């Protein structure tokens, strides 16, 4: 059977349109020869050597980060742009849900726009007439259909656009991230419509960020990154490969965020110290700081602004989050062990010290806070280079971004070195439960409660 969509070694190179594209009219006319000898610095490869083949009647998912070439691939299939090299072949009538309601004129009524949009998408007037009621009902816009489109809410606008496009009755449907257009109910209707398409042996090419949709809906998937196909085939496998890569990216991003936060906080705090010294009111100022920022993080949980302060008699030189293998990491899975390793340097031996630890979620809510004094560890001596590790056996948190407070201070709260919210990490989870804390739990049922084997859907 011939595939419905076939891309063979397709590359697409965009010119960067900064200034003038053609220096003269003559070169404009010879555009193709120009494309051939483009300077590399002027070009942007949106797709590089991508091949895919979508059998008739199947649903194919395209995923990837923003700017990875997904939409370019879709536009090539739709015929809106031409590949720089390679071939694109599509069998049958295409309808592209790339931008819904593109071409709606704001001044004229929904009814007139349905007709014009339908004609743009290749229907005849009569065909639209026949489907008009279906379109309007699908868009749920019966009472507003004669109002000018400019009075529509963005949701109404999108729904109408979607309704027209889907009723073109194509053989190949191209969908670009448009399921986010409506409320829950409308999204379900769209999905039902897609399922109907699938049943009637039509081909769907779906570009989406929703991994869930890819897994549930697609027969096959491709993951694009920087215009290249990274993985191709079974959706579950492709999604898995994608998630692994995303974690690596997040890791790098969080590392950069943390480094920046620490650096800027350190710069600010050293500046502050300098000023205090000049004022010659060292102790008093710091005393005020201590009152302002009590060492006990729990009592100040709503004032979640990052920063660093303290006398630096004991200085925190390095903080690392360690994974199961003891390697520094910024992304953890719910239930993983995590270690917070703090390296310190004491300028002179001290006998009054408390190590504090605070864990905050993205909303600034303190999830947990403790210190060695609260846990009744009596300090005796701390000298030179030292290390302290706060280990959590199982990170029972729901998915989200969390920040850490790490501090060394005196028993009365006088800070040596207080790092507030400088360390960011992410907790990932395949289960999208809610709240903050995930208690270790399990469900038990009497034998007459039965669930289907495997996962939902």
């Amino acid at each position, binding site marked *: 059977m011939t595939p419905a969509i076939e891309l063979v070694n397709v590359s697409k190179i*965009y*010119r960067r*349109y900064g200034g*003038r*594209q*053609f220096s003269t*009219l003559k070169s*404009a*006319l010879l*555009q193709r020869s120009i494309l051939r000898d483009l300077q590399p610095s002027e070009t942007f490869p949106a797709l590089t050597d991508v091949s895919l083949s979508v059998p008739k009647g199947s649903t194919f998912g395209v995923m990837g980060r923003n700017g990875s070439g997904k939409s370019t691939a879709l*536009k090539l299939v*739709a*015929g*809106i*742009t*031409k590949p720089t090299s390679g071939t694109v072949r599509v069998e049958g009538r*295409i309808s*592209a849900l*790339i*931008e819904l309601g*593109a*071409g709606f*004129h704001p*001044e*004229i009524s929904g009814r*007139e726009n349905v*007709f*014009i949009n339908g*004609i*743009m*998408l290749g229907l*005849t*007037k009569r065909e639209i007439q026949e489907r008009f009621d279906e379109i309007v009902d699908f868009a749920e816009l019966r009472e507003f259909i004669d109002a*000018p489109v400019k009075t529509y809410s963005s949701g109404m606008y999108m729904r109408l656009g979607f309704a027209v496009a889907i009723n073109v009755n194509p053989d190949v449907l191209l969908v670009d991230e448009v399921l986010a257009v409506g409320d829950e109910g409308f999204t379900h209707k769209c999905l039902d419509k897609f399922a109907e398409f699938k049943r009637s042996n039509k081909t769907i090419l779906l570009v989406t960020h929703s991994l869930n949709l890819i897994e549930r809906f697609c027969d096959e998937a491709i993951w694009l990154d920087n215009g290249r196909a990274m993985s191709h085939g079974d959706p579950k496998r492709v999604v898995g490969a994608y998630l692994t890569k995303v974690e690596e990216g997040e890791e790098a991003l969080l590392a950069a965020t943390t480094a920046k936060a620490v650096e800027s906080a350190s710069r600010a705090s050293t500046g502050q110290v300098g000023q205090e010294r000049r004022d010659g009111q060292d102790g008093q100022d710091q005393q005020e700081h201590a009152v302002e920022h009590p060492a006990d993080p729990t009592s100040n949980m709503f004032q979640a602004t990052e920063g660093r302060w303290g006398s630096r008699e004991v200085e925190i030189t390095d903080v690392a989050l360690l994974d199961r293998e003891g390697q520094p990491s910024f992304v953890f899975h719910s239930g993983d062990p995590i270690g917070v390793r703090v390296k310190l340097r004491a300028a002179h031996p001290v006998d009054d010290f408390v190590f504090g630890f605070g864990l905050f979620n993205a909303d600034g809510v303190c999830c947990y806070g403790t210190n060695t004094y609260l846990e009744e560890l009596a300090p005796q001596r701390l000298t030179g280079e030292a290390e302290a590790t706060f280990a959590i056996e199982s990170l029972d948190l729901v998915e989200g971004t969390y920040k850490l407070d790490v501090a060394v201070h005196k028993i009365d709260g006088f800070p040596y070195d207080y790092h507030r919210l400088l360390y960011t990490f992410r907790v990932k989870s395949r289960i999208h439960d809610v709240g903050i804390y995930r208690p270790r739990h399990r469900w038990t049922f009497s034998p007459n409660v039965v669930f289907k084997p495997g996962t939902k859907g």
Partner: protein
Amino acid sequence: MFSNLANLFRYRGLIQSLVARELKARYRGSALGFVWSFINPLLLLLIYSFVFTTVMPNTTEGVQPYQLFMFCGILPWTWFSSSLSEAANSLIAGGNLIKKVLFPAEVLPLVSVLTNMVHFFLGLPILVAFLVIYHQYPVPSNLLWFPVAVLIQLLFTSALALILAALAVHFRDIKDILSNLLTLWFFATPIIYPWFQPSVQKFHLFFDINPFTHLAVSYQEILFFNKGPVGHWKWLLSLGAGSVLLFLAAYWLFDRLRDSYAEAV
């Protein structure tokens, strides 16, 4: 290219509904609505009447009433110049369609031309009414030339519209230069002065190479000068033949640059 030209015929339904949409949208929300299509040329004519009979009376022999003579040239000129300025902007304004929908781009400049042609037609009744009021009846047989002139102007304007639309995507400056060029062109064409004026005839070569001269003079002969048959028909038909060639060339250029629109708009 010729298969694309054939497609153009297939898109007539689309062109038709887009023109209708433009016309509907233009006056949507105004109290008088479509009546404006009549009022606008009427007001224009009244202003000219006031200026050229009261403020600075023009008594040139053979072109009286002067405002009516001018109007015969200004109506088609307005069609021509508005078409071009709208067409030059049409691909850029319709960028959404070109980028997001598989859409035949040439439809957009042609819609600009056709929409303005409808406005031209709507202005004609006003002209006719005033011709009647001033007892300036055209020679009936000359009126047969009128559709020919319209058709040739349509072809000529469409050709320029395609070229401008295609180039304006890449050279945005065109939009700004165009309005000044059109003003210059307007004054270089015998519209507000008669072409048989000695000062015009002295430079007749210059006027002869201006295509719109022949359209303007033809319209004037058909509608205004009722003394004899249309003497300008050879020029008009030559322009017609030239316009066919120009249109084919324009379409070739437009087609050639087609793939660049979705990226450059």
